[in-house]
Each structure stands twice: as structure tokens, then as C-alpha cells.
């Protein structure tokens, strides 16, 4: 028996209901530039909603150092 292989383009992956490909998409949603700070949602120059976000803007290595320093 050989490996069960699935090759899938980005479009095919996003359209798939295969649980393995759904997991791939879920993983991608959380990767990219991640922002820390305050975020105002505005409409017509009126600040309506304030979101205090605590998502860290750092590389994994930087995050690890910060956590280690904090633990000390």
C-alpha cells in the first residue's frame, strides 16, 4: 500500500469540505501580520467601537524571549 496523497490548489482547498483541508484553511486564518494595540472601528470619521486587542506584533523568537523574560 502507498501513501494516501492529496494535492490541492488554494482555490480547491478553500472550496473543500474534506476535514484535512478544512484544518489547513483554519491554520492559515491565524497566520500573517498580527497586530497589538488599540483598534477603533470608524464610520464617516465617527469612532464607534473600541477594541482593546492584545495580539502580539512579534516574531515567534521574540515572543519566546519576552515570555522567558517575564517568567524571570
Amino acid at each position, binding site marked *: 500500500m502507498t501513501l494516501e496523497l492529496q494535492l490541492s490548489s488554494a482555490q480547491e482547498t478553500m472550496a473543500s469540505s474534506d476535514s484535512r483541508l478544512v484544518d*489547513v484553511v483554519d491554520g492559515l486564518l491565524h497566520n500573517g501580520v498580527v497586530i497589538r494595540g488599540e483598534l477603533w472601528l470608524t*464610520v464617516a470619521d465617527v469612532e464607534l467601537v473600541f477594541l482593546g486587542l492584545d495580539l502580539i506584533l512579534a516574531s515567534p523568537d521574540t515572543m519566546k524571549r519576552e515570555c522567558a523574560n517575564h517568567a524571570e
Partner: protein
Amino acid sequence: MPNERIVLGWAKPETPVPGLIAKSIAGELGIVSVDSDLAQDAFSRLQWQVALYEFGTDFLPVAPIISLAESYGEELALQHHDAFLSRLKELEGAGQISLGISWKPRRKNDSPATTGREWLNKRRQDHVADKSNAESSIAFFNEFENPEFQTRTRQGPHALHRDILLPRAKIQRLFSDISICAKEFPADAVSFTATGPWPPFSFAQPF
């Protein structure tokens, strides 16, 4: 009354973008954004980003889970201009392939054991088979390691996931190599997925 636009990512100002996505300039960086009505959830933002990438645009993608207002995206571009620009240059002409391999715990024989010794033997056989699948899977995964390409790897109890950053021109060759190697892979109960190319999500963080 116009809606706030949602940022898909940052690109060089001269980068062409499809007609529906407006672009404003902050310093030497351009911002690629879309009307908020068209990108109300993470999945729709992901779809826009994939379309942008497939159009041929190189950009630093925001994590799709984040709904980032354009005005705030401009502030970030000004605040972290050099880091963003530097990262963008590193990602120029590149895309991401996502590989995943998972192996199922094997049960050679599901019939109930009649003695304690038999039960232990069954468990030992299953463990050996499972370990063999894991080692074979990891070895197969590592066939595609290349020191020229950046990678990000995550490992779970019965799965391994790796994202590979490589030039767009080499992506199709990697898919071909995977297909060829998979035909010779000896283990069963192993599942392998290769998806992409994607925008370089796992390599976008500029800090």
C-alpha cells in the same frame, strides 16, 4: 456614506492590483484593501488575499482572522515602515506551500485479547507499527527539505505540518516531486496533503 475599508496587506506602491481593490499610499508602502461589505469574515478576507496572490501581486498579508481598518493599517505602515518594507523585499516573488502528514494509530488485530500476555503483545505490535509509520512519515516529509527555502514546522501526536516559502517559479516542481515520491512511499495508514500556493502567511511577520 462610504464604509471603512479592510486591509488585506501591504505592498509596494507600484504593485498592480485587480480593479476592485483600492490602494492608498503610506510612505514607501502601499496598502491593499477591500470594501468592508465584501470582507466581513475571515474566510472572505482569505479568498481576497488568495485572489490577489494569484493575480501576481507580492504583498505582506494581514492574518485573515483580523479585520484591520485601513486608517489603522496606514498608521502601522508609517510606524513600522522599515521593518515592513524589509520583510516585503524578502518575500518578493515567493509563495507558500503547506504540507501536512498524519498517521493513524494502527490496530493490527481488533479481536479482544483473551489473556494479559496477549493484550500486551497486541499493544506492543501496535506501538511498533505506529512508531514505524511516524518515522516513515517524518522521513518522507524531510525529503522536501531544502536549505534554500525557509520553513515553519509544527508537530502533534500523530501529525506534522510544515509551511515552505519558495520562489513562485519553483512551486510546480515541488508538487511534481511530491507526487513522484508519494508513489514510492512504503507505509500505509498515512495521509499526506500538499496545498497551495498561498500568500506567504506563515512568513509575513516582520518582527
